[in-house]
């Protein structure tokens, strides 16, 4: 009965590789997000999707491409991985409306060697 799930939990890969992280929510929410949490614990929004439509795209290298096949899924594909991409990536979802609290997944720790 996990609300927001992500796979994989850990991802270790070499520089230059391409990898994907998957996210699914079973809360019936309309909006999903990707965040990057760096070593200083700052959570920075990368993308936001509402009903499969991209509505926020922060200053993120175009090596990062989100894909939302339906409103319950938001995947993150990363091309040509770099050392600086190492971080914890969190998926989150929220409902549209006044109660915008976000529900976060457990995170994916990406290590680029």
């Amino acid at each position, binding site marked *: 009965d996990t609300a*927001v799930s992500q796979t994989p939990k850990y991802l270790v890969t070499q520089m230059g590789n391409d990898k994907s992280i998957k996210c699914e929510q079973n809360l019936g929410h309309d909006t999903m997000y990707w965040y990057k949490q760096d070593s200083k*614990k*700052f959570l920075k929004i990368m993308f936001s999707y509402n009903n499969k439509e991209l*509505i*926020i795209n922060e200053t993120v290298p175009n090596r990062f491409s989100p894909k939302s096949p339906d409103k319950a899924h938001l995947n993150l594909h990363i091309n040509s991985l770099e050392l600086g991409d190492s971080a914890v990536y969190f998926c*989150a979802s929220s409902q549209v409306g006044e109660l*915008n609290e*976000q529900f976060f997944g457990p*995170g994916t720790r990406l290590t680029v060697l």
Partner: protein
Amino acid sequence: EDQVTQSPEALRLQEGESSSLNCSYTVSGLRGLFWYRQDPGKGPEFLFTLYSAGEEKEKERLKATLTKKESFLHITAPKPEDSATYLCAVQHNFNKFYFGSGTKLNVKP
């Protein structure tokens, strides 16, 4: 520039020793301020939403308050299980959130 600053970065308390965490923001057009708790190796967990200055919310040993420029998370008689990183986030517009870097709380028995 829109910004959210939390202080202190880290806080060590003895069990039962009450204290407050601060979240100050310079985000225009505030729609809401959120507090989250994050345990090591896990995603943030929602605690409170505050919408307007003067508002207060309580949950067990935690109480969150909001003014026009800052929010406080008061912890009364904390227990070791309250140890975590507490994150503050400000909602700017429809779906844009700015997070602070958190306060890492350690409560010693």
